[in-house]
């Protein structure tokens, strides 16, 4: 057990990449599929292992593995997770097998490459979540782009080149700003301590004057805001989603976007606390605008996928305002922050499911226009059940995960900025407006289009990847404490101490004795 715990994160990071290489040289697509599925399932078991052994009573970084890499520059290899990243890591490993299952039937000569790219992407995502060294984080952050670029650019729809280029250029623009600020931070740390270090644990201790904080916070924040995407940096998202194949959309919405909000919590807030407090009103404003704007624009979309894409803009607006709810006493609202981390996961589940579901009807009809559908509840009743469950979670009905996230965020923001919360709560209504419109246009009304009459209900494979999501959406609504309890100390630590942030760490080989906690 000690051996596993001390290397589990490195295993989760690099195993998929190695398997991606294996897949490329697999003798056939069928073998490639099985290898990839095996890797994803093992990854998920690894995720569960981390979940089980993770000590929910501690705010420390856990499962830490650390080696010197370039001592002269202070670059280390450090991986570790705490309550901010735990759920996202598990979510990522959970989604991957479902994604591979959704791809199982695809017959395409380039399918091996596609599968390999997805595995490489998993490495990039878990790497970015687990890396606690600036250099490694940046490498993984950028590395995520490459597979996604090809997934959209090669397997996408008609305007795939435009969408892929826009996605990459936009993100790279933000990343470069972040890189520049990170380099500045690195030197600032050197000047204050006389030691070169790129370890995040060291960089947290850097004290900067407000003026330089503002610039560097701005650089980091723009990078993350683009990724979220926060209004008004969001226009790459609908294009990317619409053009991306289903698997790409699910991962993009499920995990990649969360890298932005995760980055805000991991980097922007604790490293530049005073700048964050100064900028919080702006972020709350953009978040609230995003909530309402995203919902309204989603409402008028004619393409189901674009509608879901804009709904992401709205939902992630909630996460943004939840991350910036500075209370009167200067602390962040624990409720809002809990809600923000919860909403990240929940959005991954519900929006992931929605993209899968749109994929299901797209594969059957090769159209996503709402006007081409109607009355599908008649001949696809199970599809209807799944779509309604995903919708309910998306609109935040109590009993689904969406409610927990939205409620905690709004409640926390209300304690800090009541007016903002009141405006944001309009999103609760508008969310229902567009999602119920989507349901009504697809599921209800007369089944009068002859092409729709022939459609078959979900098959076993589709059940296989939709049912886990539906169950999880409800479990997250009924038993939220099971998830929140794991993350509570980390979130309270960040909310209360972000101005003098530091992280303790527990090495992986110390993680075995649960009773010692």
């Amino acid at each position, binding site marked *: 057990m000690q051996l596993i715990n001390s290397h589990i994160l490195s295993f989760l990071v690099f195993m998929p990449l190695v398997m991606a290489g294996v897949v490329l040289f697999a003798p056939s697509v069928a073998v490639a599929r099985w290898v990839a599925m095996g890797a994803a399932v093992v990854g998920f078991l690894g995720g569960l292992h981390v979940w089980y052994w993770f000590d929910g009573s501690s705010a420390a970084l856990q499962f830490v593995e650390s080696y010197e890499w370039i001592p002269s520059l202070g670059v280390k290899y450090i991986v570790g997770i705490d309550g901010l990243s735990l759920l996202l890591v598990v979510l990522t490993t959970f989604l991957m097998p479902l994604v591979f299952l959704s791809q199982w039937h695809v017959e395409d000569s380039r399918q091996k490459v596609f599968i390999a790219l997805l595995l490489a992407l998993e490495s990039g995502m878990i790497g970015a979540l687990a890396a606690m060294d600036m250099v490694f984080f940046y490498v993984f952050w950028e590395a995520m782009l*490459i597979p996604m670029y090809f997934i959209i650019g090669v397997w996408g729809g008609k305007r795939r080149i435009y969408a892929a*280029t*826009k996605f*990459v*250029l936009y993100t*790279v623009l933000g990343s*470069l700003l972040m*890189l*520049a600020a990170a*380099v*500045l931070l690195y*030197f600032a740390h050197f000047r204050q301590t006389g030691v070169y270090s790129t370890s995040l644990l060291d960089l947290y201790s850097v004290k900067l004057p407000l003026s330089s904080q503002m610039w560097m916070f701005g650089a980091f924040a723009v990078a993350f805001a683009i990724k979220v995407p926060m209004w*008004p940096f969001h*226009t*790459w998202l609908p294009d990317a989603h619409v053009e991306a194949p289903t698997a790409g959309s699910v991962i993009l919405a499920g995990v990649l976007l969360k890298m932005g909000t995760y980055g805000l919590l991991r980097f922007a807030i604790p490293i530049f606390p005073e700048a964050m407090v100064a900028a919080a009103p702006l972020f709350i404003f953009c978040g609230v605008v995003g909530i309402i*704007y995203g919902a*309204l*624009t989603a*409402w*008028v*979309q004619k393409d189901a996928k674009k509608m879901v894409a804009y709904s992401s803009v709205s939902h992630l607006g909630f996460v943004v305002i939840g991350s910036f709810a500075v209370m009167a006493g200067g602390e962040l609202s*624990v*409720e809002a922050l*809990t809600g923000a981390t919860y909403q990240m996961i929940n959005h991954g589940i519900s929006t992931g499911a929605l993209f899968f579901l749109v994929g299901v009807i797209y594969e059957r009809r090769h159209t996503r226009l709402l006007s081409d559908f*109607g*009355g599908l509840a*008649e001949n696809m*009743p199970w599809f209807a059940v799944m779509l309604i469950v995903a919708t*309910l979670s998306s609109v935040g*009905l*109590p*009993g689904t995960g969406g*409610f*927990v996230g939205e409620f*905690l965020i*709004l*409640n*926390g923001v*209300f*304690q800090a900025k*009541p007016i903002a*919360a009141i405006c944001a*709560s*309009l999103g*609760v*209504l508008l969310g*229902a407006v567009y999602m*119920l419109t989507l349901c*009504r246009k697809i*599921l*209800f*009304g*007369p089944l009068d289009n002859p092409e729709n009459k022939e459609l078959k209900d979900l098959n076993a494979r589709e059940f296989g990847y939709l049912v886990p999501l539906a169950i999880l959406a409800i479990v997250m609504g*009924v*038993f*939220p*404490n099971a998830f*929140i309890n794991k993350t509570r100390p980390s979130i*309270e630590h960040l*909310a209360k101490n972000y101005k003098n942030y530091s992280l303790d760490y527990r090495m992986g080989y110390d993680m075995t004795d649960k009773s010692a906690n």
Partner: protein
Amino acid sequence: MLWVMLLAPLVGAFLNGLVLRKAPKLVSHMIAVGAMAIAFAAALSMYLGMMHDGGEPKTYLAFEWLDAGGFHAPFKYIVDRLSGLMMLVVTGIGMLIHIYAGGYMHEETSTYRFFAYLNLFVFMMLQLVMGDNLMVMFVGWEGVGLCSYLLIGYWFHDDKNAAAGMKAFLVNRIGDIGFLLAIFLTYKHFGTVSFTELRTLIGEGTLDAVKMAAVGWITLCLFIGATGKSAQLPLYIWLPDAMAGPTPVSALIHAATMVTAGIYMMTRLNFMFYLAPNTMHVVAVVGGLTAFFAATIAIVQSDIKKVLAYSTVSQLGYMVMACGVGAFDAGVFHLFTHACFKALMFLGAGSVIVAMHHEQDMFKMGGLRKYMPITHFVFLIGVLAIIGMPPFAGFFSKDEILWKAFIGGGPLLWGIGAITAGCTSFYMVRLLCLTFYGEHRGAHGNAHGDAKAHDKGHDKGHSDDHGHGHTPHETGVGMWGPLVVLAAMSATVGFLGVPHVLGGSNIFEEYLRPVILIPEAAKEHWEFLEATYSHSLEMGLMAASVVIMIIASGAAIVLYGRGPKPILTSWKNSCSGIYNTLSNKYFVDEFYFANIVQPVRDMAEFLWAFVDVKVIDGAVNGVGELSRFIAGTVSFKMTGSIHRHAMVMAIGLVCLLSVLVFN
């Protein structure tokens, strides 16, 4: 026992909805009714147990639900006199309606869906009434809204039904935002959302000025929630459309239980409302106006379910008005009697509709007394109860409200209530006459059924229905049985609330007294509730309302007793302005659509087509084009590799920054 009661409907919904979708209709009906019977038996035994112990409140913790920061919301339930009464109403009347629904739905396919939703609704409604904190109540509050949405849109093939369901959900959500804000405010100022703790903090403690003001806002926000769920002005518009659902749904959800949630919630938190006299004024006025407006609309409706729908809105207005003048017990009493007689009338109307092959226009009915003697008899009792004929249930409960409105709100509020009572008598007797008396005006008996009726009703399962004769006929015992039970209750439950002035002891008021708590700070303001009044005044008002009832009923009998009098047509023509306003429901829907929905939609189109595509994305693409242009002019060849460019840029930036930092 509590767990049995709560879980039985959920299990029923689960079995019907997810497991046994291919089961025969009878099986799904039996599962649903069985679940309700178990729940009712459990509720009854729990209720008797509670009353045996003196009716003291007891709380039960299921499990911890949601803890974040200082926020604490467990799945905790309370059994006391108020929730005890509600659970009996929900499971008892719910069970009768479930039994009835088997007959009503027997021509339908996929009834598993119907019964699953219906069971799920009962589960959610029980969350609403049994919850011991605002959060569990809110789970039920939105949960019943979901079931309402699903059931209104049950016949989803008709887009109109889907639209009606959506409208109900969305309008309710407006109210739900009020409810949410109330939770936030409560948490902010009192640090808890538990009813039990709030009752101690607010009802028995003393509050400073800030907290008093907070209570004012909290109650106002809660009342916004109530206007949504209980269909009050200005959010009542969803309820009439909700009649698109199957009639048992209208009886259960849109008459007897869900729509009374607002009254229940206000009564549950009466100690807060007593502290907020301003909110209470709003409540009383909104309730009174709703009662009046809805009653006037009901007078000219021709769809039997629409009349009942507006009648429900109007009666809910009464209950809300009662809460507004501090007479929560009277409100709940009317809730209880109304649940009996309105469920009865909706189910009766459902039997009529089935007998008429889904014709709902009363002007095409008439004379059904002959064909449906049992339904006629029970319906008659329902009408007598609602119009307030002594000694039927409605007489006592309505008169109690009118009396409290007089002493609490003054003659004007009483006047509104009394006129409403007159309207109620008129439209109810009109409905009774048009449906059951006079000559039969239906097209039945002609060649092959009535094509129009098929079109107007929903479209499934009836067009191939040859088994029935073309003349209306009495329903089976599965349908009239529950009606008889409800009729017996409508006739008798009023005696629980015989006022002192008539020599009774108002058992009901005494029963609820422990639930009602007027905080010290508000005692003075509400002392009129306990004051003594001259008996002659109370008797006089009572007599006046009976006289109004008799005159209005008489007028309806004269005009509609033997079918609609021809003179009505000429009145309709000469007063077409008023008539059109009333029959179009004061054009409220049109107003909302033109002034709220359409502008928002236009704005959304503008945001999308102009702001998003042209301005924001235009800027993004513009930057891209610009850099390409610059690159072209300095003949920096596009090699096609984004990453190479990015790398070059990155190295450049780092160099630049290094220089800056080291200087």
